[in-house]
C-alpha cells in the first residue's frame, strides 16, 4: 500500500453523513480543506494582529501577499476590478495553502481533486458571467464580438470566442488539478523506487541513489509548482474578471 502512487488521493470518511441518499460525509478531503482555511486564515489573522507600522516577518509576508494580489488585479483588471480583491485574494491564498499543505508527507492535497478545482474555476467564471450581465446587460455579449474583424469572418470569430470562453473553466481547473496530481504521483513513484530498490541489497542501495536525488529535486520543483499554480490561477482569474469589468476591451 505504501508504494501505490494513487493511494494518496484516496478519500476516506471520517464522519459519515448521509442526507437524502447523498453522501455528504466529512472526509479527509474535508479535513484538509478545513486545515487549509485554518492555516491560511490563522496565519493572516495573527500576522496582521499587531498592526505595527514597521512590520515584523509574519506581517511582512501578509502584506506582501496582499500587495502581490492587489498589483496583479490592478494590472489585470484595472482599478474597477479592485472590488473583486477579496475573491482573488481568497482564491490565491486558498489554492496556495492547499498546494503547500499537500507537500507534507501523508497529507491530503485538496487541489488534486478535479471537483475542487472545477468548483473554484466555476466560481470565477460564474462571477464573470453574473457580474458582466449585471453591470453591462446585453452589452456583456460584446465580449464575443471583437472589434475590427471583417464581416465575413465575424461568425467564425464569434464561435471561436464562445468556445474559448466556455473552455475557460475547464482549462483553469484541469491545469491546477493535473499539475498537482501529476507532481504528487511522480514524487511518489520516484520515492517508491528508492524503497523498492533499497530492499534489494547492496547493489540496490547503490542504485537507489539516483531516484533519491530525483525525489529531492522533484520536491523542490513541486514547491515551485505549488506556488506557480496558485499564481497562475490568480492571474487567469484577474484576466477573466477583466472581461467582466471591460467586456469591450479586446
Amino acid at each position: 500500500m505504501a508504494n501505490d502512487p494513487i493511494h494518496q488521493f484516496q478519500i476516506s470518511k471520517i464522519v459519515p453523513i448521509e442526507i437524502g441518499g447523498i453522501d455528504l460525509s466529512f472526509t479527509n478531503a474535508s479535513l484538509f480543506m478545513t486545515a487549509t482555511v485554518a492555516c491560511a486564515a490563522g496565519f493572516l489573522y495573527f500576522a496582521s494582529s499587531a498592526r505595527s507600522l514597521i512590520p515584523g516577518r509574519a506581517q511582512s509576508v501578509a502584506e506582501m501577499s496582499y500587495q502581490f494580489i492587489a498589483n496583479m488585479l490592478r494590472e489585470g483588471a484595472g482599478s474597477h476590478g479592485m472590488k473583486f480583491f477579496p475573491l482573488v485574494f481568497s482564491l490565491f491564498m486558498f489554492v496556495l495553502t492547499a498546494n503547500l499543505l499537500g507537500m507534507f508527507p501523508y497529507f491530503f492535497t485538496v487541489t488534486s481533486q478535479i471537483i475542487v478545482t472545477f468548483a473554484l474555476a466555476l466560481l470565477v467564471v460564474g462571477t464573470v458571467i453574473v457580474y458582466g450581465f449585471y453591470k453591462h446587460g446585453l452589452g456583456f455579449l460584446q465580449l464575443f464580438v471583437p472589434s475590427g474583424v471583417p464581416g465575413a469572418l465575424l461568425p467564425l470569430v464569434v464561435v471561436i470566442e464562445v468556445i474559448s470562453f466556455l473552455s475557460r473553466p475547464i482549462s483553469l481547473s484541469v491545469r491546477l488539478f493535473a499539475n498537482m496530481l501529476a507532481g504528487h504521483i511522480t514524487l511518489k513513484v520516484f520515492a517508491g523506487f528508492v524503497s523498492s530498490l533499497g530492499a534489494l541489497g547492496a547493489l540496490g542501495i547503490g542504485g537507489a541513489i539516483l531516484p533519491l536525488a530525483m525525489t529531492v529535486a522533484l520536491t523542490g520543483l513541486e514547491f515551485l509548482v505549488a506556488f506557480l499554480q496558485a499564481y497562475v490561477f490568480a492571474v487567469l482569474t484577474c484576466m477573466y474578471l477583466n472581461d467582466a469589468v471591460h467586456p469591450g476591451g479586446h
Partner: protein
Amino acid sequence: MFVTSAYAQTAPAAPETPAAPGAAPAAEPHAAPAGEVHTETGVAHDTEHSGAFPPLDSSHFASQLLWLVITFGLFYLLMKNVIVPRVGGIIEDRHDRIAKDLEEAGRAKAEADAAVETYEKELAAARAKSHGIAEAAREAAKTKAAADRSAIEAELAAKLSAAETRIGEIKDKAFAEVGQIAEETASAIVDLMIGGKASGDDIKAAVAAAKTGA
C-alpha cells in the same frame, strides 16, 4: 487516461490479493496486510464507483462540494470582512504616515531654508553695517589726520614766515649797520690817508655806490 493506466497497473495484480474476492481493481497490488486491504476495499464498496481513479471518483463529489462551499465560503467571508480591511488598513496607515512625515519634513526643510535665508540676510546686513562703521571710522581718522596735518603745516608755515621776517629784519639791520660801519670806516680811512675830512654826504654816496656796485 489516468483511469485506464491505473486499471492497467492494478487490474492484473488484483487476483493476487488473498482477501476480498471480487475486489475493486484499485485494491493494493503490493502484498499488503489483509486487514488493510479489507478496510481499503470496504471503503470502496460503500460507493458505487468503487474502482474509479480517486481524484475523478464522482461518488465523493457531493461531499467535496459541500465542504468546499462551507470552508471556502467561511474563508472568503473572513478574508472580506476581517483580513482584507485589516491588512489594507495597515498599508493605508503606513502610506498616510509616510506622506504625513514627508510633508512634515518638507515643512521643516522650508522652515530651515527660511531660517538660513534670514540668517544670511542678517549676516549681510551686519556685514554692511560693520563695513559702514569701519568706513566711517577710517574716514574720520583720515579727516582728523588731514586736519592735524594741515594745522601743523599752517603752524610750521607761520613759524617759518615769522623766522623769515625775523631773518629779513636782521639782514636789513645788518645791512644798515654795514652801511654805517662802512661810512665810519671810510671816513676813518679818509682821515688817516688824506688827513682831511670828507663830508659825510660824499662818504654816504660813495658807500652806497660801492654797495650797489658790489
